[in-house]
Structure formats: structure tokens, C-alpha cells
């Protein structure tokens, strides 16, 4: 596939490749979770990774975000090969993520949670912070403004000061998204953003994902096993089954791929 920018039907610009996975293989002991998978993520697109349960989608996401280190293969990010890294270093490079089972700071308020997303942008040292003048003050104000914008955007103003532990599931998911977005990531990884949601919440979440991509130009890679939602959202889709890649392309291409249909509907083996 060429690496030149193009404009989509709905007028968004998709840029060159920002991340490329090359022949990734991940094993847990003797079990292969991912076998020789390659794909790329391009700037400004919504890229989905789908597949039935146990296909290795979450493992793939964990490889991208540094929680797992693959035994074989290379991760290329912004034109350079990425050495093995700790998750916090990957986050430091501008790759933010959410978790399937929500990992929030339950004891902290929504505002504080979202502010932690901006730790990376705070550069003032401890002495500057202690005297609270100049750089530290400027930074805090600047970061607060950005965070408030994101909170407005995700429509969680009303619960800004509420401790996260008290919120219902759907709102927690949204707070986690806000925290990831606050980091102004180059790539935003979403691990099953719609898992466990009702139809209305799913629609809200889809809208947020599209708006995020549209308004902030955020590159999004998401995992989902609800086919319908994914097809409507994404520009390109990778399909995995039993740790292998069985399809890669636009939603239409994938939908008509015989292997994909077999994987999802099951096929008679004779």
C-alpha cells in the first residue's frame, strides 16, 4: 500500500504511516498468542482490530503499549525501530491507552484522574512547584484549561469533583477515555471501548470516538468484537483469529472476505 496522504469520502485527511508492526510473534510458554502478524497504523485514521474471543486482540494491544514484549518481530514508530520498552516509556512517547476492565484511580476525583493524563506535559521541577510562581503556575493553568476542554468535550462536567469510585460503569469508561485523550497522544489505543454497554451508551461512545478523531485529529486504534459498531467507525480493519491475521482492509473488503465470514459464523470442517 502506498504511504501517501489521502482524503477520505467524509473529508478527513489520512496521513502517512505512524506505526508499523512487523512479523510480531508473542508466546506465553508454549502457547502462541500472536503468530507472525504485520500491519500498519496511519496518521489520523481509525484503525480497528477485530476477531472472536481469544483471537489475541488484547495481546496485540498490549504489545503496542509495551505491557508485553514480543519474542519475535519489530515495532516501528514514527520511522524508527522501537527498542524493548517499559509501558511508562511507551506512554512517554505519546501512546495512550484505555483498558478493557477500566484502570482508573478510584480514590481520586474525575478532574484529578484526567489531570494525571497530563503528567508528561508538566516540566516544572520540584522547587519551581514549591514557590508556585512562573513556570509551575503557568503550566498548571495551561494544563487545567486543556483538561477542562476535554471534560467539556466528553460531557462529564457535572461529575468533575466526584471520586471515580462512585461512578457507574459507563461514566467510568468515559473518564478513562478523557484521561487518555488529555495526554494528547499520537496514537490512542482503546481496548474494547464498548464492552458491557447498552445500545444508548454504545451510540454515545461511537459518537465520541468519531468526534475525537474529527476534532482533534487523533489517531485511534481500537479493539472490539462487536462487528457492527466497528464497521461503521473504522477506516481500516485488521481481523484476527487464533492469533493469526486473516484479513486486513476497508470494512467493505473485510466484510466480503471468506476467511472472515468463516471465522465469525463458523465453518464446517470435513
Amino acid at each position, binding site marked *: 500500500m502506498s504511504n501517501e496522504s489521502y482524503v477520505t469520502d467524509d473529508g478527513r485527511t489520512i496521513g502517512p504511516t505512524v506505526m508499523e508492526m512487523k512479523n510480531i510473534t508473542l508466546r506465553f510458554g508454549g502457547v502462541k498468542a500472536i503468530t507472525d502478524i504485520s500491519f500498519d497504523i496511519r496518521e489520523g485514521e481509525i484503525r480497528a482490530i477485530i476477531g472472536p474471543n481469544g483471537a489475541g486482540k488484547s495481546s496485540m494491544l498490549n504489545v503496542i*503499549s509495551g*505491557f508485553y514484549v514480543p519474542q519475535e518481530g519489530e515495532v516501528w514508530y514514527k520511522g524508527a525501530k522501537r527498542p524493548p520498552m*517499559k*509501558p*511508562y*516509556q511507551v*506512554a*512517554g512517547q505519546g501512546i*495512550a*491507552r484505555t*483498558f478493557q476492565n477500566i*484502570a*482508573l*484511580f*478510584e*480514590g*481520586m476525583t474525575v478532574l*484529578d484522574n484526567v*489531570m*494525571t*493524563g497530563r*503528567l*508528561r506535559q*508538566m516540566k*516544572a521541577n*520540584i522547587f519551581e*512547584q*514549591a514557590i*508556585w510562581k512562573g513556570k509551575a503556575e503557568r503550566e498548571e493553568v495551561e494544563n487545567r484549561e486543556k483538561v477542562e476542554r476535554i471534560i467539556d468535550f466528553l460531557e462529564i462536567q457535572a461529575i468533575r469533583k466526584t471520586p471515580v469510585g462512585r461512578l457507574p460503569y459507563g461514566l467510568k469508561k468515559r473518564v478513562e477515555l478523557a*484521561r*487518555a485523550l488529555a*495526554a494528547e497522544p499520537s496514537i490512542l489505543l482503546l481496548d474494547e471501548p464498548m464492552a458491557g454497554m447498552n445500545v444508548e451508551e454504545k451510540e454515545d461512545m461511537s459518537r465520541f470516538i468519531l468526534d475525537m478523531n474529527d476534532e482533534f485529529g487523533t489517531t485511534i486504534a481500537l479493539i472490539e468484537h462487536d462487528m457492527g459498531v466497528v464497521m461503521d467507525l473504522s477506516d481500516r480493519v485488521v481481523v484476527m483469529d487464533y492469533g493469526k491475521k486473516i484479513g486486513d482492509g476497508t470494512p467493505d473488503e473485510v466484510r466480503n472476505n471468506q476467511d472472515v465470514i468463516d471465522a465469525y459464523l463458523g465453518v464446517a470442517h470435513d
Partner: protein
Amino acid sequence: MPEQLVFAMEVFANGLMSGVLYALVALGFVLIYKASGIFNFAQGVMALFAAMTLVGIQNGQVPFAHLINAIFGTHVHTFGWNISSAFALILTVGVMILLAWAVQRFVFRHLVGQEPIILFMATIGLAYFLEGFADLMWNSEIKTLTFCLPGEMCLPQGMNLAIDDAAFNAWGVGFFIDNLDITATLVAIVLVIALVAFSQYTKQGRAMRAVADDHQAALSVGISLNFIWVLVWSLAGFVALVAGIMWGAKSGVQFSLSLIALKALPVLMLGGFTSIPGAIVGGLIIGVGEKMFEYCFGIGQCFGGVINLGGATENWFAYVLALVFLVFRPQGLFGEKIIERV
């Protein structure tokens, strides 16, 4: 004012102030427990080690003098200089940070993800190691700690000196409070305010709270767990240093100092293992409680002396109170209530 009442008030005030010292030790426990789930049995020994290091540096003692003399047959003991307290304090803080790094690097980094009981055992090992190390480094003599900041501002010595020199006489009614206790209280208040401000308003503090709450989430926003753990061990080392200075000035720098950790245990059960205000309030309750209990029932000064247990109740009162709390409110006054969902 009746003499009896003045005496009771004195006892109360003294209780408050020894409570502050308990709280200082408990604070170190809370810091580490919150951020890493490790119950640091070595906190008391850290206070001892810090105080010994401070005195050693101040007096120009040669570290490991016994060892050096034994190996090389020399007779070195001191460098023959005296270093100002302020400078020695800075150097000691440096040593405590180094210790924090070493503990993280050589012990707990290898135990990530282990059961809490294993981490606890590791801290017991650390406590014994550190005690031996302190002995080897600075020898085991009892040392007096004189701590003076520039401008002749010296930390008052404890009650073992003449009472008139050491105590503060208020309202002309013979109301005696140990000057050292007053100083310790002020220092503790400043320390707590500084710690709370640090954890609430700085970037590192926010990261610290984040790690305390959820490791995975902290990693995903770019926080290095290792850095935060070194940071909390350094902070705990600093708190231990302050506690070591206060206790050292009160009763001399000696090995029994490490036993104050045992008094911090009931404080933690009262206040909750995860709450900084809890450590303070718990310390005050234990301090006042044991002094007032001793006054009232130990030596029978209340209610016409109906109950007189014959003294020495201070030795067990704190633990009994902690036991009562364990039965009726196991999470402590301020701890997080544990609710299991079925």
C-alpha cells in the same frame, strides 16, 4: 488553680506531645504502605540508622572504623573535625536517598508481584540487616545528639537534663512542658503540612497518589513505578530522620530507638494504614490515652483512686486499645473500608 488539675493538664499535654512523636514514626509506615502495599517493618531501624548517621557525620566519625582497624591494624576513629548540623543534615538526607534507591534496586525490584507476606518478610530481613550495618558503620555506643542550626538555634535536650533548663514554665503556676516536646510538635506540624502539600499539589505528588491507587493505570499515563517507589522510600527515610532526631535528642541515640516502631503499630491500627491524617490522630490518641490512663487508673488519681492498677500501664495500654479497634473497626478510624462484592 488546684494542684491536682494542673498536674492532670500537664499529663495531658505530655501525652499529646509524645503522641506527636509516635505519629512521626507512623507517618513513615503510611507513606510506603500507601504507595507500594509494603508494610515496612524496618521503619524504626531506619530512624535509628538516620540518627546514627547524622551524629556520626557531625562528630566526624570514620565510618566502618572497627572494620578498617581490624583489617589494616590501624587506630583511626575520627577525622578530627566537626561538621555543622545543617550540613550534616543535608548529607544524611543524601544517605537516606541512597538507601532508598538501594532498597528498591537490590530488594524490592526483585519481588515485584509477590505476596504481601513475602514483602513483609523482606522488610524484617531489611530491619536486621540495617541494624547490623548501622552498628558496623557507626559502632554501638550510646551517643548524644546536639542539633544546632545556624544562629545558635539548638534543639533542646530532653528531660534527662535539669528540669529548669529543659522545661517551659507557663502562666506562673508551675506548668511544666518539655521544651523538646514543644519543638517536636512544631516540627511535626510543619512536616505534615509539607507532606500533604507535596502529595496534593505537585506533579510528583499526583504521580505518587496515582501509583498508590492503581499500578496499571499509572503505567499507562507514563509514570515510572520504580521512580515513585524510590521517591516514597526517600520520603519515608526523611520522616525517619526527623523522628530519629527528635527521639535521639530525647533519650540519646541508641539501639532501643528501633523499638519505637513497635509503638507505631497500635497507632496505625487506630488511624488506618493508608491515611496520613489517620497517623497523626492515631498518634495523638495513643499518646494522650496512655498517659491519661496511667494517671487515672495506673496510679489511681481519678475518681478518688477507686481503680489503682499499680502503674506501668503505659507498657500495654496502646496494644489493648489497638486490639479493641481490631475487633470493632478493623479498618481503623480513617482507613479505607474493605467491601467485598459477591
